[in-house]
């Protein structure tokens, strides 16, 4: 159902600058139903380099899916979205916005720039874990991705 990367695992790019959130997401997915290859970048500029395989990321594997925070150093998540969703060779990659922001303006802006969906990070730990598990159930399990 899902495209095997060279490692045979689903390739996830996590764009997140908060180390606590990174750890929680990675640990939850580690307990999950599949094997994932999770690559982490900490700011928007790195994310763009990774996706375009430039700079330090010439060897980067094309992600099957991207989890994208909005408030990021250097370039924010909306700028990353704009780059990814206007590039013919990248726009097919699903981008899930996962942010602490609840602002209507951010939600609209994300959809306007073709985020595949928008999720607010719950503050409560259990809810955060359940949210990550739901992303896993939906996006990593039943969703068809382009090769």
């Amino acid at each position: 159902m899902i495209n095997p990367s060279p490692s045979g695992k689903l390739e996830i790019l996590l764009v997140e600058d908060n180390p606590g959130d990174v750890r929680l997401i990675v640990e939850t997915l580690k307990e999950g139903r599949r094997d994932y290859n999770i690559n982490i970048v900490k700011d928007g500029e790195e994310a763009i380099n990774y996706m375009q395989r430039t700079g330090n990321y010439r060897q980067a594997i094309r992600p099957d899916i991207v989890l994208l925070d909005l408030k990021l150093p250097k370039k924010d998540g909306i700028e990353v979205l704009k780059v990814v969703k206007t590039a013919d060779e990248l726009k097919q990659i699903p981008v899930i916005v996962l942010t602490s922001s609840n602002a209507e303006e951010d939600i609209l802006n994300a959809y306007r720039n073709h985020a595949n969906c928008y999720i607010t990070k719950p503050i409560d730990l259990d809810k955060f874990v359940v949210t990550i598990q739901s992303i896993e159930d939906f996006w990593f399990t039943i969703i068809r991705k382009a090769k």
Partner: protein
Amino acid sequence: MKKERLSFSASLPGKNKKEKIMNDTIVNVRPVEILLVEDNPADVRLIMETFKDFKIQNSMSVAKDGAEAMEFLKKEGAFSAAPRPDVILLDLNLPKKNGFEVLKEIRNTPELKRLPVVILSTSDSENDILKSYDMNANCFVTKPVGLDEFIKIVMTIEDFWLSIVKLPER
């Protein structure tokens, strides 16, 4: 985010607890308006029945072909009082206008372009999947052949799009 959350393995919720947490994780408080664009009556019935039982209040309208879907979305003809949907479930093989044509029109209409569109199709073709994402579908789900599998997938769509995702304001 507090540090206490990192006593990790002890805090992974089990299935019952997960359900309970899901129930108060609901992020969309108002009833969710759904437009289902589907010409197969059996699929329509199954999807409607599944959504009717869902914990989140929702109201589903059905368009049976692509032309009707666009009239509904643009509030034309018989649909002048149609509600603006929060999310669309869109089949691809449809009479009159197919799903790609509907998707294209949605994305080219300023007041509709942000609408989340879930493609729900029997198609399994790589070409259709690629084309859908190229045209900015939000996601692509293949309808499974088995009934139980189908219901399970509809429930997963429901859980995800109605209770986890933040939908844009109408």
